Every structure is written in C-alpha cells, then in structure tokens.
C-alpha cells in the first residue's frame, strides 16, 4: 500500500511539534515515545502498520480547536481516530501526521427522552449509547458488528451500518446533529434536536466522510423504542439460488425484515463447528430472517415468510421459540468471522454492495475467480440490502498468497461495480479500496469530491492518503477553464 511520501521537514520538527502540542494538552495527553505510540500503529485493518509522528489525546473542544489551528498554521497533517476499529484503514496513522485520538471524549452528555434523542461525546461506544438508555426501553438502532468497541464518532466518520439497516437505516439516517472542529480551528454545529438543515445538508455530507473533512466533537442521535417482539426464522435451501430468490420474494411481498442474512455452505459449516447454533449442514444457502415489531405483526409476518420460503423450496424452516433460541440463531452468524478464522491462518473481509437481483450471478462468478486465484472464499452477507462480505482465505506468511488474495479481492470489487453495485457498503474506502476508486468513479467524479474536500481542508491536511487515489492541489482543482467565443449550441430548443 503506497502512502504519500513523508515530509522530511516535518519529521525533523518532531520534538518541536510535540512540545507545541504539550502546551495545548498538558500532562499525559501527548505521547511521543515508541512504546507509548505502539497501540496506535494500526486499526482493525491490521495488515498495514505505521507509527504516527506524535499521538495527542485532547479532553476538551478548545484543545481540539487549538491543535487543529496549530496544525493548519504549521502545515502538519492530522489523522483523527475514534476506537480504531476501522476495517478499511480509516484510522491508520501516517508517518508525518499527528494522531488525534478522541478516546477521552467518552461521556454521555444528555439523554432527552421527551425528544427521543441523546447527546454524547464522540468517544462513547455505539453499544454504550444503547446501554445508557435501555433501562427506559430505548436503543440506538445502527449496530455494526464491532458495536461493543467502536465509537459513535467513528460511526459518523464511516456511516456505519449493521445487520438491521435494511429496516432502520445507517448512521446517516439516525443522526440529528453534530458539533465539529474544522481544520482552521473553527467550531461549528450542524443540526441539533430538530429535523433537517436550514441550508446545505452538511451533516449528511460529514457522515461517511472518513475523517477527511472535520473532527467531530459531539453527536446527537435519534433514539428508538425497542420493538416489543423479535423472532428469527432459520431457512435452509438446497441451492444458493433458492435462498437468493427467497430474499427477493420476501421483499416483493412488501415485507421489510429487521434483518435478513445469508451464509453459504462453508460459512455454515465453520459457524456450526464454532458455536453449535443448530444450523442445517446440508443447506447450500442459509438465511436468517428476523422480524420485529408488535407480537401479532411478528406472528403474521413469520407465517408469511415461512410460506414464501416453502414455495421457494426451503428444506429447513425453524422459527425461534424464545429469546434464547433467537440469540442462538444469531450467534453463528455473529461469530462467522472468527469461526472462519479457525480454519485459515488469515482471511480478508470484503464489503461490496450489489443489486439483490444479481446475487446468484455474483456468487457463481466469485467461485470461478476462486479457482483462478487458487484461494478459497467463504460468503457471509447482509442479503436484504445486497451488502456482501466475502472472506478470502489465505496465509499471510506466504507472500504469493497475500498478493493473490489482494488481487482476488480487487477482482471481486470490480465485479460488484460491473453489475451495478459499489466498492463498499459499510466499511469505508480508507486505504484499502482507495486505489480501486477509479473503477467506480471517473476523474471528474473524483475531482468534484476533492473540491468539496478543499472547501473544508484547503491544504489536504486531514487524514491524508485515504479515500482518493491521487490528490490534486486545491488551487489546481479550483481553476475554471472558460472557452470564449464558442457557438451557443443552436441545436437545443429555445423559447
């Protein structure tokens, strides 16, 4: 993975920069010794590691503002970091950039049940929000698999999803407001406890901007009442196509399940061996469909889903009888990644999204690719919204396998784009998919995105080396080329 060349002038000023940061954040908040910085050298995309220039852990918004203003004035790059659980290298350090950790912003500031929202600091974990409100029967809907560890600030940066987003939306659909600090140190608030924006929807833009536009210092999220009932249906099919058809038929019947997950035969085998969830080992495709809501509605929809599944040739059809069994049905799915980890030294997790109607074709083509690259692939995915998580099995100690795994992964993502899908459904571009952006976007598309970046960060100091395959200077991007004396296009109808 090629990162931008390090600036020797910045590296030479390392101790001066550390001292300047200490003047802003006193005490233990600045870390510049190698052992102290080691925990920050990577995020959850741990194949890539890099020590930062200095780590700074501010505790207040004025400190964040002063740090960014200092970095802007002295042209020092900044990598913001929440809990470091990014799967795409979004929080991976850069050698000539300070690492700005928001971990000390870990307080729930206000819970407003009457307006059904919570105001929290960005370092609060995703699950921490639900924990803070569940005694009153509320929860925060987006539930990425890393929810026990990932921070809400990171969720905003990545627009995190989870298994329930088909029905409840991603982070962007569950946010009401943020406070953020711009690279020039200015503090702005977007949204609040009310709905919609008075001007451009910068809150929507910030969500999923991967830490390239600003540093989030406060988050207001929407709270929902926990559904009174949830049941999971376990459906086994003799073919993957049967399972995929069933997914389409459920949605065509007007049912939006809380979650609808699919696993292929290998994933089922691994998960069953690991957790013993009672999955049918003969199924080529397994679906877990969760229905939630009022009890009568869940009963009604479960019956409909069973009916549809049987019409589509389901050979296993089991409805969770109680909460314990529902959790057990999910346990295998939730443990699928570590379960696969039991049968391979390493695996690479991908994250493309495709139109649901193309699932079967994409799975078949992936098998072909698997043969071509000589590596196994196991599939676990959010079938309801077409978000695939193929796991490529390899051994990182074999350099040829690592290279082949990377090529295989790139081929899968190209396939996703080719069938009308996208490179990443929920993990983000980061460094991982950066160099594939050209598969989905033209240079003009990317230039337009970079111009938006320039509106926030004209010197490209925030989270450099991420998302964009090649950076163009803002001055160059800003130039308008005007061709005077052109014909005023006489062939277009005028009145």
């Amino acid at each position, binding site marked *: 993975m090629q990162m931008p060349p390090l600036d020797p002038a910045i590296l030479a000023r390392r101790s001066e920069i550390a001292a300047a940061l200490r003047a802003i954040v006193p005490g233990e908040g600045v870390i510049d010794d190698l052992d102290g910085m080691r925990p920050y050298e990577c995020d959850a995309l741990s194949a890539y590691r890099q020590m930062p220039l200095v780590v700074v852990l501010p505790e207040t918004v004025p400190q964040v503002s002063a740090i960014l203003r200092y970095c802007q004035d002295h042209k020092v790059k900044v990598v913001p970091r929440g809990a470091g659980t990014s799967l795409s290298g979004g929080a991976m350090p850069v050698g000539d950039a300070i690492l700005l950790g928001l971990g000390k912003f870990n307080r729930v500031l206000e819970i*407003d049940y*009457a*307006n059904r929202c919570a105001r929290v600091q960005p370092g609060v974990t995703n699950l921490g929000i639900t924990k803070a409100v569940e005694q009153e*029967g509320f929860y925060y809907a987006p539930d990425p698999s890393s929810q026990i560890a990932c921070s809400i600030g990171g969720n905003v940066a990545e*627009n995190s*999803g989870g298994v329930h987003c088909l029905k409840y939306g991603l982070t*962007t659909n569950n946010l009401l407001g943020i406070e953020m600090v*711009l690279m020039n140190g*200015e*503090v*702005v*608030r977007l949204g609040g406890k*009310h*709905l*919609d924006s*008075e*001007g*451009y*929807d*910068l809150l929507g833009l910030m*969500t*999923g901007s991967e830490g390239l536009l600003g540093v989030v210092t406060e988050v207001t999220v929407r709270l929902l*009442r926990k*559904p*009174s009932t949830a049941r999971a249906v376990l459906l086994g099919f003799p073919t993957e196509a049967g399972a995929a058809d069933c997914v*389409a038929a459920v949605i065509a019947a007007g049912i939006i399940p809380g979650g609808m997950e699919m696993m292929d035969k290998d994933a089922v085998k691994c998960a069953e061996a690991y957790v013993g969830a009672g999955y049918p080992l003969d199924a080529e495709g397994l679906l877990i469909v969760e229905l939630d*809501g*009022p009890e009568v*509605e869940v009963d*009604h929809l479960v019956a409909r889903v069973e009916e549809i599944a049987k019409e589509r040739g389901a050979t296993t059809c089991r409805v969770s009888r109680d909460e314990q069994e529902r959790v057990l049905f999910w346990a295998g799915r939730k443990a699928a990644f570590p379960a696969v980890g039991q049968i391979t030294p390493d695996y690479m997790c991908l994250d493309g999204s495709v*139109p*649901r*109607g193309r699932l079967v074709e994409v799975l078949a083509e992936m098998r072909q690719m698997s043969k071509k690259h000589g590596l196994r692939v196991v599939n676990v995915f959010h079938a309801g*919204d077409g978000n695939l998580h193929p796991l490529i099995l390899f051994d990182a100690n074999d350099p040829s396998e690592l290279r082949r795994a990377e090529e295989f992964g790139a081929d899968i993502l190209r396939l996703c784009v080719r069938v*009308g899908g*996208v490179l990443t*459904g929920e993990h*983000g*571009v980061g460094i991982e*998919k950066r160099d594939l*952006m050209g598969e*989905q*976007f033209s240079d003009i*598309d990317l230039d*337009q*995105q970079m111009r*938006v*970046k*320039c*509106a*926030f960060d004209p010197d490209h100091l925030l989270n450099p080396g991420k*998302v964009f395959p090649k950076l163009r200077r803002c001055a160059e991007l800003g130039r*308008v080329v*005007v061709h005077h004396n052109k014909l*005023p*296009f006489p*062939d*277009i109808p*005028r*009145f």
Partner: protein
Amino acid sequence: MAGTIRPRDAKELRQAVEWALNDGVTLDVRGQGSKLALGKPMHCDQVLDLSGIAGIVDYAPEELVVTLRAGTPLREVEALLAQRNQMLAFEPPDLGPLLGQAAGQGTLVGALMGNLAGPRRLSVGAARDHLLGFSGINGRGEAFKSGGRVMKNVTGYDLSKLAAGSWGTLAVLDEVSVKVLPAPDQTRTLLLLGLPDEVAVKAMGAAMGSSHDVSGAAHVDGRTALRLEGVAPSVEARLKGLRDLLATTDTKMEELATLESRAFWREVRDVMPLKAEADAIVWKISCPPTQGPGVVARIKTQRPTACAFYDWSGGLIWLALPASDDADHLLVRGALGSAGGHATLIRAPKSVRAAVPVFHPQPPALAALAKRVKESFDPERIFNPGRMG
C-alpha cells in the same frame, strides 16, 4: 424577460451549462416551476427548463429502487409505484395550492431539491434519506455522478445529501435513483380531541416513544392525530395499545378508517389545515418537538391572530401570520430562542422575500463554510444565484 433553454437529454444539458458558463449567463433552473414562489427572488439571464429530460429509466420493485430523469412529474412516479404497491415513503408534499398554484404539479427531483417531506418524515426520514444517487452537471459544465442504485453505499462522499435541499444551487441533476418502500395495507388514525397544545405534544411524544410504530403525529385544530400503518392485525393491536397508553378519564378519542385517514394525512402533508388568509405570510418552523408549543405561544403574544398547526410530533410548525412588510422574521426566528431549530419563509409576496432572509441565517463560520461548498460545485454562481438567501 429571460429566454428559456430546454435541453432534451443529458448531453444537451451539459452543452447548455457549458454555454452559460462561457457566456457568463446565469440560469434559473426549474422542472415544472411549481415552487418558483418559494425562495429568494432571483434575476437570472436564462431559464433552464428540465421538463424535456423526463421519463422512468428503470424501476426494480424487488430492489426497492426507481431511477428516473429530472423532468419526470412526481404524479407519474407515484402512479407507477402504486401499481406495484410501493410508495415514496417520505411523502413529498404538493405545495402548489399553498403557493397559489394548481395542485398536482411538480417533479420528484423538484421535491428532492427542496428536501421536502411529509408527515412520515418523523419515522422514515426526509427526501434526502431516499436519494441513493444521481448524475448531473456541475457549474464547470462537467458531467459527474455520486452514489448509486444500492441501499448500502459508503463509497466516496455522500453528495446526494448535499444535492437534496440545495434548491438547484449546486448542480443540475439529470438523473436520480430513489429508494422506494412497500405501501402499507392499512392506515388508521387515532384522534384525541380537545387537547391544549402542550398536552397534545406530550401525548404525541408518548406515542412516538412507544413501541406502537406511529408513522404520523400531528396536532390540528384541537385534534391530535396519530397514524398507524401496516398489516391489519398489527394495526388493530397497536391501535388498542395506543388507546390504552393515552387513555385518561376525560380524553375523548375517535378513529379514522383507511380512506378517511389517507385524506386526512394528505391534507396535513400539503399544509391544507392552515387557516391562512390569501395574503397571509406562511412560515415553516423546525424545532425540538417539546419546544413547539412554546415557540407558537411566544409568537402569539406579539401576533394574537397568528394560526398554527403541528406535525412531526410537535417538531414542525406551520404558521400563518397577517401580512407585513418584514414577515415578522425577527419575531419568528427570535421565538426559537436557544432551543435550536430554524424557520423558513415559505409564502410571502416577492417584495417581502426580497427584503428578508427566506432561509434561516447561519452563524458566520457555518455560512462561510456553506459558501465554500457552493463554490466547490458552482464557482461562477450560474445556478439559481441567490435563491437560498
């Protein structure tokens, strides 16, 4: 009087923008022009009429997505979706009659450009939450795209969010992909009668905070309406649950069945219940739901003849004020106080809209940022210049 240019496809659209850019021509970008009376009055050199770039490109009901061109009438899209029992869940309003025009006009892309949503905004999100992707022309005359046709997509910046609610000031869209949802089998409404505003907003809050999946909560003329949608047995059970939750010894309740319910919520969506004289000023105020009654009360102490009704559980106030030269903008915005929110001047004579900020003024740092974002798309300010003032 400005001339009109009416491209027939994306290529002609790009040529038109390129020409405008080269000749320093500003463009009044419109679909059917149904919302021309909304926003800051503009003085453009040319009208860019998108009604010639119309039609459904692709509709995949099982994918929950429809792709269509910018000039496609909203009514046409809704009729198409209804055939497959689907809908635009955000309930784009028809503001035509409120703005002194005929009903049934407007394009879906026009509704997206205003980020306009109806009562279901509360439960399923705004127009912006349903725009999956688009292609269009920026103010440099370049064709670009963002987003896609799939539900889950975090590839690159989410420019769809910026486009929605930009009132055509960032780029001219030629094609959009929009998320659709199954239409509910049944719609029922529980009405609580005679509650004062404060009590009504508390009741709506309790309903929204319950597990009964309320998809509309409005307070209109002493009637507090709670909408339940879905399959019949579920709607029945939730209706009973809501009644039990909200029952007090002296609260009178009534129910509206499916057809009456649909008519009622269509009227709320289109701001019909607002008792506004023909020359009255109309404001749309978004605030934290519990603050709604306080905001209205503060305005009424100064303007006792003001009328208002609430949607979005109290968080949306439609307000009518007697005609004035300044639309009482300081009073209205001042009434929001420190609780946060914003007020948009929806209806006022041109001279009034020219004189006062139509969109809620932003703090300087935010306004400067928004200006830089505008310039990143349209550096020469050729698209709808000044409309969002």
